[in-house]
């Protein structure tokens, strides 16, 4: 086969995702500068993975990939999350 199989994402979709990413960045900055530390930490824990997820899902075309690739990415990220979880488990019970 000489033809590539990539899904053509409309220009407008990418521009909308970019707009959301900028808005989330401003929200994250505002929250961290204006609110109590506990709230800003929670905002960071929610907004930052959401932003990364948008880049993975749309900009990196993960939305249009086959289940095999999606599964590989999930396993890689889940492994990292498990190790981060194990770190905090270790620190909490020292």
């Amino acid at each position, binding site marked *: 086969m000489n033809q590539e199989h990539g899904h053509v994402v409309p220009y407008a979709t990418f521009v909308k995702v970019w707009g959301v990413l*900028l808005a989330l960045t401003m929200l994250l900055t505002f929250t961290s500068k204006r609110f109590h530390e506990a709230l800003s930490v929670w905002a960071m824990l929610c907004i930052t993975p959401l932003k990364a997820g948008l880049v993975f899902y749309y900009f990196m075309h993960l939305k249009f990939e086959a289940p095999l690739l999606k599964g590989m990415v999930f396993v890689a990220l889940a492994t990292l999350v498990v190790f981060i979880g194990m770190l905090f488990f270790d620190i909490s019970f020292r």
Partner: protein
Amino acid sequence: MSGSTAHGAAAHRDYAGAKIGMWLFLFTEIVLFGGLFILYSAYRTKYPHEFHTAGQELNYVIGVINTVVLLTSSLSMALSITAVQKGQQRLATWLVGLTVILGALFLVNKYVEWSAKIHHGLYPNGPELLKLPPGEGLFLGLYFTMTGLHGLHVVAGMIVLSIMLVLLAKQRIRQDDYVKLENAGLYWHLVDVIWIFLLPLFYLAA
């Protein structure tokens, strides 16, 4: 495709394999930075107040500006793939060129930021940094290590994208063969994702 002749074999391309190969490489990058994020988390838990104080040394406005620059470069990169898929070769070339320029702008901001720090003696093993309490020194050490390693990735990405510009000009990347550009884009987007995490960990830590 028969694949029975040498010519047939040369013409064969494995689109899915090329992408999976690139993602496998990206996993090694995720683990590389993931290890550093784990290190940061461990020390932040040990020195929460020192990390908070040392975070005030960083100008969050520069961090946010650089985030906007990198997010915009990711947009131009993503748009260039659509342009190639639609056969708009010239537009795709301009968009990849814009991505490289935005990468350079990011590095200029980084240069200004690092120069100010170095001027004030705040650099690994620098005179002012050594006077700081251990936790604050650790924060700035991690800052230089992680943003420095990220900066090297930006430089590598710019080199790869410059090669893509040449391939676009030579029609080696075109409407029916663009997986190289897609893979270069995947690398650039991952560099963006890493910065998305560096912003709150360092610039918004105070």
